[in-house]
């Protein structure tokens, strides 16, 4: 969801930041190594992506990306300084140098990638708008929603996407709009509408807030593009490349079947792709400015993309988000990484 006003504020901030950033061409990598800590911007609290567990440790899919970068660059996934950032301050925090990387469920758009001085390294979660409905109503896909009343938050792209979807599907619907997401959700709970719509990642948490979660179903349809991914400051291409290849290493590891559990056995593998990934053949770490075991450490300490997804938001979590678009390309999803070669 993109709200217009905060975007405008952030843009103004970005303009100031870009002039400041042009002077400082410091190497983020050196700064991180010297500090001995990665400064990673995370959400102030989003189930499955960034939250504190009972012991106060940060957990989540975005948090694991911070850990993976720290493991690759500093050799220790624990050497992360988590900086909780709100929606409004996240970009300026990155531009001012307070953060080395922003892993905070941020949607990749052209405006952010150009005018706001950010560089998105990839998509670590393909999100998009979806629907939750009551199982008893019998809807199985979005096409079954003809004539339905849909609860939606007003003033966001969510509302526009909803209209577009029903127009394109040539279906009738009745939107019930609310100022706040909470209110829209409560109206759905009170049976005032047949479906509630927001981003799919949120729908699964919403389901857990129902008195009987199993009576509700998240439809498979994703009607908008919300590619979420980590971002770095523009102007430090080496750092950009490192963070980008941390992401690709996570994906390649899953594709090659190298998991946190079996990485040590896999190190003895004769498969050339696995040997290159784990640094047993060729010297790809050097090109990144790292040592050759960078990817091995990521997988050993954090896991591959599938491990991270399952543990935080997938089958191994309470949220149980369907992998959907986030499956590997080999399994019908969109997650695709260039080879390590």
């Amino acid at each position: 969801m993109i709200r217009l006003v905060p975007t405008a504020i952030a843009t103004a901030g970005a303009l100031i930041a870009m002039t400041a950033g042009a002077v400082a061409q410091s190497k983020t990598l050196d700064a991180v190594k010297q500090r001995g800590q990665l400064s990673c911007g995370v959400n102030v609290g989003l189930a499955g992506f960034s939250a504190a567990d009972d012991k106060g440790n940060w957990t989540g899919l975005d948090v694991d990306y911070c850990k993976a970068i720290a493991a690759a660059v500093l050799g220790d996934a624990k050497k992360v300084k988590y900086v909780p950032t709100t929606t409004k301050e996240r970009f300026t925090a990155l531009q001012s140098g307070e953060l080395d990387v922003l892993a905070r469920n941020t949607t990749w758009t052209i405006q952010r990638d150009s005018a706001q001085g950010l560089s998105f390294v990839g998509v670590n979660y393909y999100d998009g708008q979806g629907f939750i409905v009551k199982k008893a109503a019998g809807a199985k896909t979005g096409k079954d929603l003809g004539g339905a009343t849909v609860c939606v938050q007003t003033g966001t792209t969510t509302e526009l996407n909803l209209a577009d979807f029903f127009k394109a599907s040539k279906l009738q619907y009745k939107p019930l709009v609310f100022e706040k997401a909470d209110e829209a959700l409560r109206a759905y709970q009170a049976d005032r509408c047949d479906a509630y719509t927001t981003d799919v990642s949120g729908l699964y948490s919403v389901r857990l807030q129902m008195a009987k979660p199993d009576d509700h179903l998240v439809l498979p349809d994703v009607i908008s593009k919300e590619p979420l991914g980590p971002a770095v400051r523009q102007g430090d291409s080496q750092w950009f490349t490192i963070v980008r290849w941390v992401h690709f290493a996570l994906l390649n590891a899953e594709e090659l079947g190298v998991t946190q559990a079996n990485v040590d056995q896999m190190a003895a593998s004769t498969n050339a792709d696995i040997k290159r990934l784990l640094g047993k053949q060729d010297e790809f770490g050097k090109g990144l400015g790292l040592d050759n075991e960078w990817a091995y450490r990521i997988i050993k300490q954090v896991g591959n993309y599938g491990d991270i997804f399952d543990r935080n938001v997938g089958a191994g979590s309470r949220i149980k988000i369907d992998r959907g678009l986030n499956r590997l390309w080999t399994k019908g999803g969109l997650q695709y990484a260039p080879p390590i070669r």
Partner: protein
Amino acid sequence: MARDIRPAAMPPPLTVTGPVAWVRQNLFSSPLNGFLTLLGAWIAYEVLANVVNWAFLNATWQGEDGSACTREGAGACWPFVQAKFGQFMYGRYPDGERWRVDLTYALAIAGLAPLLIPRVPGKLWAAIYLAGIFPLIAVVLLLGDVPGLSYVPTQLWGGLLVTLVVSSAGIAWAFPIGIILALGRRSQMPIVRMVSVGFIEFVRGVPLITVLFMASVMLPLFLPENVSIDKLLRALIMVALFSAAYLAEVIRGGLQAIPRGQFEAADALGLSYAQKMGLIILPQALKLVIPGIVNTFIGLFKDTSLVLIIGIFDLLGIVQLGLADQKWISPATPITGYVFAGIVFWIFCFSISRYSQMIERRLAAGGQRTTTKPLGE
């Protein structure tokens, strides 16, 4: 024959004395009052019954995660508060180091007791200790980074600790600054007056959230790289300056209420400006505006929640962070968390308010003698 048996004294009829009469007189004196009493009782019962049901009868008392609180008509999810209680109090302050926070609280209470409780002696020493020594000890204890105490960055502070640190430091700084601003605004010197008026009016014209946002987001852009002021410190300074402006106006109200004669009498005695203000004017003015000052402080205490906007977790913020933990998601968790935060805030604000009323009564004792016996008659 005279009858000398006195009739036994009958008790007064039930209708004029005892609880029945009280009920008749106060609750059912007329059909309308009777109706209103019943209506009130019914409303009170409905509300109370729901609260008791939610907080006790339908509440969940034991459970490993949110699924224990997931059912139709579930009440409060207390295991969530239990699991997160340490975080709610200390934030992510390391477990093994939390005694340092407790010790700081104890040292603060030791210093505050003589100042707050009239009977406890040693007020001068306590004031010197609180103003000069305690802040240093508190910073060293909480922050560490000295031999024997490991470094705990403010990033890890949170919960009630942050709420108390921000509000108490805010109050401690705002009070003297507020007095200076109030005096400055009434000063004869044009520059002093203009600076005071300018500051007060600027701050009062800007929402606190904007000031905090500026401190958090814009300030780093203006500072050279590698120079960063701690985020919590930035918030502290802003909160203190903000409250100082409001406090200055409250105190100015008190100053205006002091009759001119008091100023002239002080001048006639040949007192310097500092003596005049410190000995004659301010003690009277501050006494007059205690309700206003306490109001400002309670407002400040609750405003600390706004620091969440810059990614610092006060009590409310840390509760919200707990709500994001997927382990505890359930229909009952959010309400439980917010109710808990509300209760803690209420305990503190109510205590401050009761205490101020006590002080008001004590300080008003001198004034009452004159008001009960008006001079004019």
